[in-house]
């Protein structure tokens, strides 16, 4: 079973994503901020992390940097989820080493198909 970690501080959004991914037989983990995300990621070594950019305390960029520094997470893919939709923002996200960038509001179906394509 593929493992996915969803990191977002909006509980309603997380709830929908969790339901949809579980339905597709993913093992789903949830974190509400960057610190928690790193903790879970180191423990579970997920195949992919969906990472919100604007979060309190440690933001998405910072979290990604830490993920990339970790040797355990070499094979983990990271996709940013963000309401920042300007070309400049997307470029910045990808430049920082994200494997994908999804703008909010997103289509759950599209996310699932993209994720499946990335990790199978």
């Amino acid at each position, binding site marked *: 079973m593929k493992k996915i970690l969803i990191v977002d501080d909006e509980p309603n959004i997380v*709830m929908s994503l969790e339901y949809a991914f579980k339905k597709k037989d993913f093992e789903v983990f949830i974190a509400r901020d960057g610190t928690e995300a790193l903790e879970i990621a180191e423990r579970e070594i997920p195949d992919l992390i969906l990472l919100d950019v604007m979060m309190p305390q440690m933001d998405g960029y910072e979290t990604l940097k830490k993920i990339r520094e970790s040797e355990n997470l070499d094979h983990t893919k990271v996709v940013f989820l963000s309401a920042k939709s300007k070309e400049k923002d997307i470029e910045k996200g990808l430049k920082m080493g994200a494997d994908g960038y999804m703008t909010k509001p997103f289509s759950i179906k599209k996310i699932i198909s993209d994720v499946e394509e990335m990790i199978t």
Partner: protein
Amino acid sequence: MSNYLVGLIIVMYLAMLFVLAYFAEKKPRGKWTNNPYVYTLSLAVYCTAWTYYGSVGIASRSGISFLAIYLGPVISFPLWIVVMKKVIRISKQHKISSIADFISMRYGNNRFLGALVTVTCLLAIIPYISLQLKAVSETFSLISSENSYVSKGFLDDSTFYIALLIAVFVAFYGTRSTDTSQHKKGIIATVAFESILKLVFFLAIGIYVTFYLFDGTTDLYNQASMKANFSQLTSLGGLENGFNWLFTICLSFFAIFLLPRQFHVAVVENDNENYLKKAIWLFPLYLLLFNVFVIFIAWAGNIRLPEAVNPDYYSLLLPLQQNNQGFVLMVFIGGFTAVISMIVVSTLALSTMVSNNIVIPYGFIKKLVEGNPEENAKRIKNLRRLAIFLLIIFAYFFYVNFSAQLSLFSIGLISFVIIAQLAPSFFLGLTWRRGTARGTEIGILVGLAVVFYTLLLPIISQVMMPNVKLVEEVLFGYSWLKPAQLFGLDYLTPESNAFLWSMSLNTLSFVGFSLRAKGNYRERNYAEMFVNHANYENLQEGAFVWKGEAYVADIKRLLSRFLGEARTNRALRIFNKKHNISDTEERADARLINFSEKLLTGSIGSASAKILLASVSKETPISLVEVLNILEESKETKANNKLLLEKSEQLTAMAHQLKEANEELLFQDRQKDEFLDTVAHELKTPITSIKAASEVLEDDDMPSELRRQFLENISRDTDRLDTLIHNILDLEKLSDNKTELDIKKRKINKTIKKALKGVEQIAAKKQVAIHFKEKENVEVPFDEDRLLQVLTNLLSNSLKFTEPHIGTIKIYLEDGDKALRVSVEDNGRGIPVEDQAYIFDKFYQSKNQNTKKPQGSGLGLAICKKIVEGHKGSIWVDKGFKKGARLVFELPKSRNGT
């Protein structure tokens, strides 16, 4: 010896220095030029012709008092590990290239102050250089055979040409790079070499006199003790003379830090602060060695030479009497090296100060902005070269007109007294935050005025108007105004007298004016950086108080003018990499402004760098709040809490008004975009949530319990969107002053009760108690609906952040003469200090919200603020309240505001 032979030797000696400097410059990182010994030897530029000749003169007339000049530095040296280390670190970080830069930077990069310090240094050092020229000229005439020769003007005076040669040397090796903070290895190498020469030669003549002309120290002592004034020469004098000792030690203590040449070799040219560890014992040792034979040469001179000769030159006259040409020449060269190294380093330091602190910031700057990099570099270099020549020529004419009447020792002391005027601002500036630019300027000016009156005026009048006896006569008939014996202290030497009064009045003015009015935010920011240096990185990188706008492209253009395209690009690339900033970033932040200021400081001085950067950036001076935050962070300030808190509250209110005015302006243009961006983001979050939920709901197999949950989420997010949109529109309306406030005199009691009624239910549900201390019949003009909105908002916030059952909310009224103050306080978790300044900003989200999202729109307090301000009142957080949160707002009692 013939004039020409001596001249030839001088020229050959200078040529050798050129070669030495050339090799040192060729290998700037070589082991030979980069070590603590060269550093220590370069510090020995302290020993000039004054030491070499003047000490003997003083020792022959007044005994061991010459030692005071060396005791100051020796006492100060253990302090170097603390003070100098700090000064060196600060100077490296700011690319400081002179004492003028250092002091002006400490007091907020003040242009006038930089110029004032430079002028002070010029006043002190030009006579000092002339003292050196006097020594060269007088020793030259002593050893050359044509004693009958009298110069008729400067064109056939050999001293003039020697001065010119030295100027060429400094101009050549001192201005190779426009960046004055770059090290000048060639010059330092020659200075270190000369320090060895002068010491060795002086020791040699000492040994020659003591052991060759006499039979050792005992013999000398026995013979000298037969002289009439011997007991006076070997005693310390009484208590009164003790004061003279004390003041002279103080003077030399200050001089070792403040003399431009000492600052230059000790700070600007320092490669490695670890060199200090060696220097603190080696340098005192050097001074000790230099002084071992002074007293013996002085005694020998008193015994052997006739009374009429100038005792300053005993070391030269003794071998001359024996007709020992080798020793004569050696002593002469030794003195000459002492002269050269002093003049070289002094003019180098002064020319930098003149160009960076006077000429460029006052007037030359416009020209530089227009020029291209090569032209600018050339202009700056030529400017410095011109300054070097002018300084030396000026010193020459000073020597011709004034030096004849004074001994080497007294000219030196005058210089020390003048330079000591920088001591209060320098030393207190490193330890005392409150010092201000205004205080410094007044302190230095007052000090200089006192020095002029007590020390220079008598000398000038003696030279200009020999018939008027100002020193003896009593000015305006008041005997206590007598320049050399101010307030009737008649046992002090003129220098000690001048030092005592100038220093006291200088320090008093400095402290007094600094306490009277606080400096601006820039001064206080630098004060914090200099005083609390351990916290430097923090302040420099994070909390540096600069708010404004600038574009990277403008800054880049500016830097290229001075550094050239390639260097600018490289510097910016490194900077971006270090701070993780994208190369495509258009806006410059405080860090870049700082960084650029430092880069430019090396070339054109800090004041000019500040002016230039200000020309491409729009600074918004609303940073008092930030300054206060910085101050609060430091523990010491926290200790003074009570007074500071009171003051800070007043300042916060003031800063508030400033902020209001600024926000209004900024809102017009760029801020609007930023606001729209945030609005878009805030709107997208609930939309994302609704969209995701509705997609998930397409699944027919979903259990009905979960389905209800999702539908509830959609409903709640829709409400959230609705509130958000409503609040945004409300805020916009208030900002554009589109809404007319219905302000009428009303009873505040009634409105507060209405607001309480509105939140009654929620409070009851959460079991939070609300107390309201009523005040009957208090009337103020306000718009009732809007004020209800404010009160409801504050109350709901308090309800949100208090715990059930134990939560208490209190409302107070304070009825003042001009305004009514309403406080809403709770015993909840409170507002973190770092958030207090921002909670009234739109969409500001505290970093300490744990993981729970705020339930509000992020606009509630921003709206409250707009409403209160619409009433010409103000709203703020009470920082002194620690048991929870206390928000306070004030409404003016008259309609026209307070």
